[in-house]
């Protein structure tokens, strides 16, 4: 599959050079810098401005088309506004990403203190009378080959983050993708036959404008028909393409990739999960 990787690189380099050549009228997105000057888009008369101003209201539901793999519209889906249209809190996203990265840090780092460095049990020379400086050990910190003071020790870097903040972070990440127009809802993510080539072509058809296909695909679970094992097998060797079940959807993975593809059932399950509240006291105790 090295050829695919090369192909992707080629596409990337072409896209970058393209944007450099015609910065004003280029249709592609800037790849390396995530800051995109609005000048890049071709100025055209604003159609449907009134509809937009209604939709822009925070908290309102978003109605989006549902595509199939050939980018044909096969239906419509409503993304609830309390999850896909919340105010984007960058600070919350930052905190959640930091929490995720800290949590996954292995923490296997260690230096040896003077007691752990081999040797050094004997007093090098007598305290007095030798004409030399006083020393108790050859492994003291100031000596060559000596121990390290306050060096790193094996530890967990994990820190806490409130569950409500984590939940809000996920909502913000989904909202960010939705408002940027980089969220696509698909009716089914099934790949048949389970070949990388097939999936590559399908993704190309689904997202034709995207030069670097940096994509996170979220299906409902590992063993359902909308994606499942076939999708994972097919995507495992595609560069910049990740697959997650909806239960594993997280802020870091969403922000890591440019585009987000959700299956229709994944959206429903995700919404249901994010709306769940803590069970009432009466339910738990009886």
């Amino acid at each position: 599959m090295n050829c695919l990787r090369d192909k992707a690189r080629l596409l990337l380099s072409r896209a970058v050079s393209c944007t450099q050549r015609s910065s004003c009228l280029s249709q592609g997105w800037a790849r390396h810098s995530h800051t995109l000057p609005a000048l890049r888009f071709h100025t055209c008369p604003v159609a449907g401005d009134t509809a937009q101003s209604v939709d822009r209201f925070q908290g309102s539901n978003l109605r989006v088309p549902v595509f199939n793999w050939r980018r044909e519209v096969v239906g419509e889906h409503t993304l609830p506004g309390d999850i896909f249209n919340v105010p984007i809190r960058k600070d919350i996203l930052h905190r959640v990403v930091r929490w995720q990265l800290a949590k996954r840090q292995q923490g296997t780092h260690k230096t040896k203190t003077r007691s752990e460095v081999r040797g050094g049990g004997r007093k090098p020379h007598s305290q007095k009378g030798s004409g030399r400086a006083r020393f108790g050990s050859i492994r003291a910190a100031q000596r060559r080959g000596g121990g390290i003071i306050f060096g790193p020790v094996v530890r967990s870097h994990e820190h806490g983050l409130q569950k409500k903040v984590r939940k809000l972070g996920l909502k913000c990440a989904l909202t960010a993708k939705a408002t940027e127009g980089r969220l696509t809802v698909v009716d089914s993510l099934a790949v048949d036959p389970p070949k990388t080539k097939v999936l590559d072509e399908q993704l190309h058809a689904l997202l034709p404008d995207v030069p670097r296909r940096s994509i996170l695909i979220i299906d409902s679970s590992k063993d359902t028909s909308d994606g499942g094992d076939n999708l994972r097998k097919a995507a495992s060797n595609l560069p910049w393409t990740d697959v997650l079940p909806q239960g594993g959807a997280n802020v870091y993975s969403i922000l890591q990739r440019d585009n987000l593809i959700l299956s229709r059932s994944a959206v429903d399950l995700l919404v249901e999960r994010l709306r769940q509240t803590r069970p009432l006291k009466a339910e738990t105790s009886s």
Partner: protein
Amino acid sequence: MPADLLEGLISKSAASTQCRYSLQNMRPFSGGHASTSSPGEREFIALNNLSDNPGATHYKKRLGRGIGSGLGKTSGRGHKGQGARTGRSPKLGFEGGQTPLRQRAPKRGFHNPHAVTWDPLNLKTLQEAVEKGQLQPGTVVTMKTLYDAGLLSKKIDHGIKLLGTGAEKFNKPLHLQVSQASASAVAAVERAGGSVTKVYYNKLGLRALLKPDWFARKQRLLPRPARPPPAMAPKFDVIGSLPPVSVIQPGAAVAAA
């Protein structure tokens, strides 16, 4: 400088950014709050441009790093003495060897280890709970019911005493089983068509009543109901059963009255 001109162009074309999405999708996504930094730039949220709010992070004090830092030579610990050394600082309330304040004051009063305290529950709370639908009017309300409805505190020592705050407005018929009740509360409940039964649970029994899960989890049997001590017996109507009886028995209300 063509800055003004550029800005004008940018603001004009900011609307067209959304227009592009409207062509791409059937209904446009809202794009209002994605770019909060400046009107001209459309900034995609990605891992490389996240930041916390300014002032959200505390920076570590760097002790002993030169005069300019203000925490140089003695690292803010002052000169020689116990406070300047490493290790534990003197315990709280230690006054350098002088008799501390808490020892200077004379002892006063006494602690009664046998004291029985009732957690108060007011009729006003019950009235509100019924109005909110947390309690059903006309039913038997045990302390377990009240606990599950979230009307009691988490830790209850010996039981609940029903008190008469809000008695004049109380009008919901409830058959209450509580430890104690004031005369005004009993009168108000009966006026509303309910009844009050004073049931006795000892501390273990009360725990079995409120948290039967704990016994199930530990695979223990529920304790048998205990009799009240002779001195306390006249204060109660019945010995509380475990698990509680929550069906209205024909003679119960009469016996309570």
